[in-house]
Every structure is written in C-alpha cells, then in structure tokens.
C-alpha cells in the first residue's frame, strides 16, 4: 500500500493525466450506456484529435499549412473508392487512404521546401482548392458534386455498431498519438524544432533540412488521410464538401487554442472547442458560436500565445512557488 502511493507520487503528473483521460475515454460507453448522439460527437472528436495532431506535427517544422483539408479529403476519397471497387472492408483501405495522402503530401512538400511561411500557406491553401475542383470534375470516378457512398466502418446491421466504431476510433487515435509522441521525443522531433527556430543554423549544424521537412509533410499527410478516411467511413458518404475551407481551418483553431508544438495542446484544444461548439449549437447560436470562436482565437494569439496548455503550467508554477517544503 505504502509502496503503491510512493510509486504514484513519483509518477510524472502528465502521464497520470494521460492515463486518467484514456481510462475515462475507454469507460464512457460503459458508464453512460449507448447514447448514439454522444458517441457520434465523440467519434468526430477523436477524428479531429488525430487530424489536428497531424497538422501540429507539420507546424512543428515551421510549416503552417492552410490547406490540410486536401489530405483529409484525398485520404477519404482514396479509401472509399478502393473499398467500393475492390470490395475490401474499410479497415483494410483506410491505410491506403493515408498512403495516398502521404504520396501527394511529399509532392506538395517538394514544391514548398524553399518557401517562406506565407508562400507555403498560400500554396497549401491553393492546393486544397485545386484538389476540390479536380475531384468535383472527375465525376466518373468520384461522383462529381453529388459524391459517392462509402462503406460503413462497422455495418449498421451489427447491433451496437456505434460502440464498436467508437472503440476503433479510440484505438487508432491512441496509436497515432503514441507515434507522434515518439517522433516528437526522438532526434527527428528535435531536428524539426531546430529547423523551425532557425533553418540556416539547423543546416549549419548538419541537419538535412530537406529530408526532415519532407518527412514532416509525409507523416502529417498520412495521419490526416487516415483521419479523413475514418470520418467518411463513419458518415458512409463523401462529397467534395470534405475539401471546404473550414475543414482546413478547424485543426489550426484547435492547435492554437490548445497550444502549438505540444502533444497535449491539439487534444486539449479539440476537446474544449468542440464542447463549446456543441454547447452553443444547442443554445441555438448558429453564427454566434463561430463569432465567439473567432474572438477566442484572436485573444489566444495575442494574450496566450502558448494556448490553454500554458494556463495549467502557469497555475502549477504559481502553486509550486507558494508551496512551503516540509
């Protein structure tokens, strides 16, 4: 008993919070029963946690993309088309969607490597619009503006399919977060941060800037494609709306409000903003909620540049400075 307490006290508080929230996420369907609305919101929440964490990984290398919806949509379309034409189950085609997005990601990355922040933002934004047009125009393959049906992740005929879907999403999200955590902690993560802080110095220190920037693009596009494929196999339908400008902007809002360049920032931002968004939607504020979210974004950029994550850090440092050691 005493040993256990000691162990708990020694444990990293961050890991403690992580394990706690994972256990909470795991037990939600067990505690609250099968609430289709709630589980749907949570499934989308998990999709966007994957998506914004992937965006954050690219931002870690100093490359702020304004067109990640392109990868989100490409992953979704690739997976849907593969599943439909080859008769494969969605779980088998979702990685194909991710891979397709990653290949395109490397191609886009190749054009972006030499560019400065604004240029890269513009090119990625433009690429989402180009992907939108091309997808809508290739109607023999993509169904044009009407879109195409996609297979459901778990067929509706199976009882409690939504619970299975939830656990699949949770599993993928945790797996993606673990991979991103390992990348951020590794030499690759350090190299990306060095490139963000000062590209020239990083180059002088012997970091292969091109290689690492492309790697960031590929990994980020891969996970974004997976998130897109997961979402459309949940909704069982895909249209070119998946490339909407909003879809590109949401992960940015989540990451900034949560805390850029951290593992927990995108998660925290996605959870807080989604709860706020859903709550205000229920109050009937169609545009009011978006005005508020815009205002929050502006205020966070000006007054809290490290995001919500830094609030807990500030409180912690205040508490520990006031704490009298025994």
């Amino acid at each position, binding site marked *: 008993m005493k040993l256990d307490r000691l162990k708990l006290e020694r444990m990293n508080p961050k890991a403690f919070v992580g394990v706690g929230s994972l256990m909470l996420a795991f037990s939600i369907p067990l505690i609250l029963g099968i609430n289709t609305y709630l589980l749907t919101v949570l499934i989308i929440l998990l999709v966007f946690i994957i998506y914004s964490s992937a965006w954050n990984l690219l*931002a870690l290398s*100093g490359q*702020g993309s*304004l067109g990640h919806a392109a990868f989100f949509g490409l992953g979704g379309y690739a997976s849907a088309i593969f599943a439909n034409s080859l008769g494969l189950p969605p779980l088998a085609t979702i990685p194909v969607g991710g891979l397709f997005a990653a290949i395109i990601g490397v191609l886009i990355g190749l*054009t972006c490597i*030499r*560019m*400065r*922040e*604004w*240029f890269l*933002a*513009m*090119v990625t*934004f*433009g*690429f989402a*619009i*180009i992907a939108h*047009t*091309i997808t*809508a*125009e290739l109607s023999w393959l993509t169904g044009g503006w009407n879109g195409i049906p996609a297979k459901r992740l778990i067929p509706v005929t199976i009882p409690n399919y939504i619970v299975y879907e939830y656990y699949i999403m949770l599993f993928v999200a945790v797996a993606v977060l673990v991979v991103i955590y390992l990348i951020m902690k590794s030499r690759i993560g350090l190299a990306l941060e060095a490139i963000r802080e000062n590209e020239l110095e990083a180059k002088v220190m012997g970091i292969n800037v091109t290689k690492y920037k492309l790697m960031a693009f590929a990994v980020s596009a891969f996970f974004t494609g997976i998130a897109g494929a997961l979402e459309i196999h949940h909704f069982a339908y895909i249209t070119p709306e998946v490339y909407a*400008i909003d879809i590109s*902007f949401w992960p*940015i*809002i989540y990451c*900034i409000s949560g805390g*850029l360049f951290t593992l927990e920032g995108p998660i925290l931002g996605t959870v807080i903003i989604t709860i706020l968004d859903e709550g205000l939607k229920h109050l009937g504020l*169609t*545009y*009011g909620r*978006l*005005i508020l*979210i*815009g*205002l*929050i*974004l*502006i205020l966070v*950029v*000006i007054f809290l*540049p490290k995001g919500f994550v830094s609030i807990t850090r500030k409180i912690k440092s205040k508490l520990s400075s006031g704490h009298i050691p025994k």
Partner: protein
Amino acid sequence: MDIGIFIQILVWGLYAGCIYILLAIGLNLIFGVMKVVNFAHGELLMLGAYAVFWIHTYSRIDPYLVLPLAMLLMALLGVCIERLGFRPIMGTGKLNEIFLSLGLIYLFQNLVAFLWSTSSRSIHSPYGDVSVTAGSMKLPLDYLIIIIVTIVFLIGFQLFMKKTTPGRAMRATSQNREAAKLMGINVERMDMLSFALGSALAAAAGSLWLISGQLINPYMGAIPAIKAFAIIIIGGLGSIPGAIIAGLTLGIAENVAPLFMQSLANLFGFSMSFTAWKDTIAFFVLIIVLVLRPTGIFGEKGE
C-alpha cells in the same frame, strides 16, 4: 473563335483584374510598411460592399457617391484592426499573423452572417441598363466606369506615395524601418496609415464589385483576397508595378483560359466545359511561379 467574343472576355478579365489590383495594392502596402500579411483583407472588401449596400438601400443615394464613405468607414476599421490586433503581435513570428487573420476572418464573416443572414444580395446600378456599343460588341457602362475609377485610384495612390510627405515617409519605413525611425519618422503612425489606406482600397474593390451588379454574401471575400495574395507573390512582394501587371494578367488569364481549354478539347473531339476551373487557374499559375522562382517574378532576393 469569334473575335468579338474574345474581346468581350478580355474586357471582362480587365474588369476582374481591376478588383484584384485594388486589393493587391492595399495588401502590398501593408506588407511593405509593416512586414505583416493580413489574410483577412478580403473581409474588408466584403464589409465595404455591405456598407455601400446598406447606405444605398436606406438613402437611395447614387452608389458611386456612397463609395468614398464606405472607404472612410473601412479605413477606420483598418486602423482598429491594426492597433488592437496586429500591433500587439508584431515580431512574435510569422505564423501568428496567419493565425490572427484566421480569427478575424471567422469573426467578420460570421458577424455579417449573424446580422444580415447569408443570403446573397445585390443592388441595381443607376447605369446598369446603359451599355457602350463599339463595333460588334456591347460593353456595360459600369465596367468602363470601374476600369476608369481604378486607374484614377492608382494614379492618385502613386502620386500620394511619390509626392507627399506621408507617402514618402511610408516608403522610407518600408525600405528600412530602423533608419526611418532615426530620421524622425513616427513609424507606428505609418503602420496605421498603411492599414487605413489598404483597407480603404479593399473597400473600394468590394463596392465596385457590388455596384457592377455582382452578388455579395458574407463569404465573398476569401477567394479574391487569396487571389490578391497570389498576385503580390507573382508580382513580387512590395512591387506595385508588379502587382498591376500580375493582377491584369490573372484577371484576363482566368477568363480566357477556360475558353482556350474548351476549344483545345473541342479540337481533340471532347466537349467539356472548363468554367469550374476558373478559381483553380490562379493557384496553378501561383504554384508554377513559386516552384520556378520562390521569391516571385519581380521580387528581390530576401527581405
């Protein structure tokens, strides 16, 4: 292809180009002086158009006369955006500017949607039924007025920048901020002035767009702003002649290229429409230019 149709499309492109140039010049000025990029510039275009719409609807004054008032209102809004938004984050990183603009885009678009709904609106220009006939083609008078107004604005802007003290001070600030400060120029006032001028030009672009019979809605600003940004990248950051040439080229290319692609497809026996590709063309051009020359066509190396 009928040459008359071709010229008509050319004029249409010229007119679209004028709107892009007005936006691009403003963006370029703000970038030059402050070295920040306001992605929410298109929202000022949208608000300017709405200002003209409401003032005209309630007072029935000729919309061309309302234009200066809309420009003044947007100039004031631009000063507020600069003081409250961009000044506090200056020098904290390029990504922050992009994020702040994103917040502004959400704020303004949804504020307008909240106040006046998302439905498209338009006004009837007093000269809407008048058209000029030249040879075999008919051109709406409004298009000609817009082209002339844009030229007047450009000449006025150029004179202001070259001949007046504030204009010269702004150019000095954009060349070297520190040296300008040492010469006794109040650079922060120049920041405000550049935002005011840029916003006024954006409002002019939006108002002219509305007056010429186009539909306006809360989301109209995003695509023109991004195109204006593409123009200043192609034309070179900070280069005003570059922006004019690139703006005209883009306006014309956008309108001629789908037609060209269509006749090319017809030549090979396909019958396809390429009008949906209009917005895409700007970005294809942008990406090709940036791959070949990462600093733009007329841009100088570095900052």
